[in-house]
């Protein structure tokens, strides 16, 4: 091979490994899943030996009250978690956006919960929620307030709290970074005009942070649909189906009920839901950008 052909081929040589791996281990499996979702598939069978059942898996899921409940739990979990985390995270960022000496230490401690294995997070919280041994009930009883049936009657709430603990720092750190990259001139101008702290936040900081906040929100929302280990360790989806999010139900359908075809169809539903949410948020972001651009243009023309 001559030097120049090598030169010409370099980009391909550099790209090929990544493409091959993604094709084998991501694209092909996803296609395989779509194919499998139209079949009656038992874990002891290889896929080619299974029967084609058309849309039967999708239809039976569509009519399955357990699937509906699981879907509702997933949506409830994801949206409550994301909205609470957004409020707390952005709030803290606005509050702590100042030059403190210990700020980097603080941020380091804040990211610890995110770095630890979800399995470990689940086990810590399961211990803390323990009806008699856990720290919550012990403190409540110590204060004479009686105990709470955390993982029983308030399982979803308990799971939401654990997730808030783990992921609020993510939003905090992203919003803080966004805040610190805001144009100082705009804030300076506002202060000279005599805007109060609240006015600055509402009219200047939040609108300027908006694109970042939307992306943050989207990333967090996507991740909220992936949560599985924390809930698996804490409640295993119970009591009833009250914390059985879709990811958990997929894995149970595949392993416990041994219905791989149904699990594949459920995976597809979940993917479609996520795709829809992503597209909606990106479209919203686009609209905001266009509107901002138009406003800027009008302002310029006005001058």
């Amino acid at each position: 091979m001559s030097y120049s052909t090598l030169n010409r081929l370099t980009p391909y040589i550099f790209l090929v490994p990544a493409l091959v791996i993604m094709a084998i281990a991501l694209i092909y499996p996803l296609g395989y899943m779509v194919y499998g979702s139209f079949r009656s598939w038992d874990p002891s069978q290889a896929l080619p030996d299974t029967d084609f059942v058309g849309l039967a898996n999708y239809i039976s899921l569509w009519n399955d009250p357990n699937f509906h409940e699981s879907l509702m739990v997933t949506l409830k979990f994801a949206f409550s978690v994301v909205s609470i985390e957004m409020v707390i995270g952005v709030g803290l960022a606005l509050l702590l956006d100042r030059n403190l000496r210990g700020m980097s230490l603080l941020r380091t401690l804040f990211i610890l919960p995110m770095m630890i294995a979800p399995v470990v997070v689940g086990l810590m919280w399961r211990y803390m929620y323990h009806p008699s041994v856990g720290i919550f009930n012990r403190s409540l009883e110590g204060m004479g307030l009686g105990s709470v049936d955390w993982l029983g009657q308030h399982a979803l709430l308990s799971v939401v709290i654990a997730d808030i603990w783990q992921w609020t720092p993510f939003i905090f750190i992203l919003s803080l970074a966004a805040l610190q990259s805001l144009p100082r001139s705009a804030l300076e101008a506002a202060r000279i005009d005599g805007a109060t702290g609240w006015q600055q936040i509402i009219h200047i900081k939040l609108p300027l942070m908006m694109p970042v906040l939307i992306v943050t929100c989207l990333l967090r929302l996507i991740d909220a649909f992936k949560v599985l280990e924390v809930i698996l360790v804490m409640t295993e989806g119970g009591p009833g189906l009250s914390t059985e999010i879709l990811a958990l139900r997929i894995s149970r359908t595949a392993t416990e009920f041994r219905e791989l075809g149904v699990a594949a169809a459920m995976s597809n539903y979940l993917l479609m839901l996520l795709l829809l949410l992503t597209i909606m948020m990106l479209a919203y972001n686009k609209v905001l950008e266009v509107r901002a651009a138009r406003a800027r243009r009008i302002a310029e023309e006005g001058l």
Partner: protein
Amino acid sequence: MADQEKKQHPAFYALLVLLIMMSVGPIALMFVNSFKLDVDIISGTSGLLFLPTIQNYETALCDVLPYELDHLDFCSLKFGGSFINSLIIALVSTVLTLIIGCMAAYALVRFRFMGRDTVSGTTLMVRMVPPAVLLVPVFGLWNNEFCLDKEGWLGGLIRDNFGGRGDVCLAGTHSGIILIYVAMNLPFVIWILQSFIVQVPRQLEEAARMDGAGPFQVFFKVVLPLIKPGLAAAAIFTFRIAWNEYLLASALSDRDTKTVPILIVNNMSEFNVEWGVIMATGVLLAIPPIIFTLFASRQIITGMTAGAVKG
């Protein structure tokens, strides 16, 4: 501004302390409990008044300790073995992802294959796919299709040298788990590295090329050293996922390739929740990520914000 801050001081610092306690408290609690006997944990001789013991760690690590333990009849928890599996899987998949990701990112930037938007889009799409969705197809493929016939030359070679029975499949091997982790992390790594490679001045590379360096040399000698911070951030994120992941590993591993998260979930056994030992395994699993966080928090934050804030 300055005097405003002074007025808030007491309440403000109280809030900070509270936040720190809230984020670190549960971890500290787990750490403390891992040094307690089960009887102490259950009966709630609360607070710090207890005799610390390393018995839980001994139980967890019974398969790698050089001495016999008196309190155990047999070694059921093979933490040492799983820890080594976790280490192999996490390290190899991190290194592979970085090498492959780096090359791809470089090609994408320098040879203008796809715009940054396409890569961002792909990254987002892949990030959207929950591991649970991959569970069914990966389970089916890795067990039934990605196999070598044991009669074939390579399959036969593997069977002769490593033992085992049946066709040689990806499931149950380290490589099977590594493959899926690499694939899952690649888009994110490419995307992060791309934003660093863009900043490498082109003149440097051209100067090197003038001196007669080939494309590979330019890449390894000039570009790589300049994007070290990006590599660190990408490495930590990949390692974290490979180290912590449970679901896919549990579907793909067999008795010899179990990772630590699987071991922990398996030992939340319903017959006998041994809190002390579980907390000890939890601490051991959490130590590597905690160390990374303490020493490389700047890179982690860079990695996290690179996406959203820079766009």
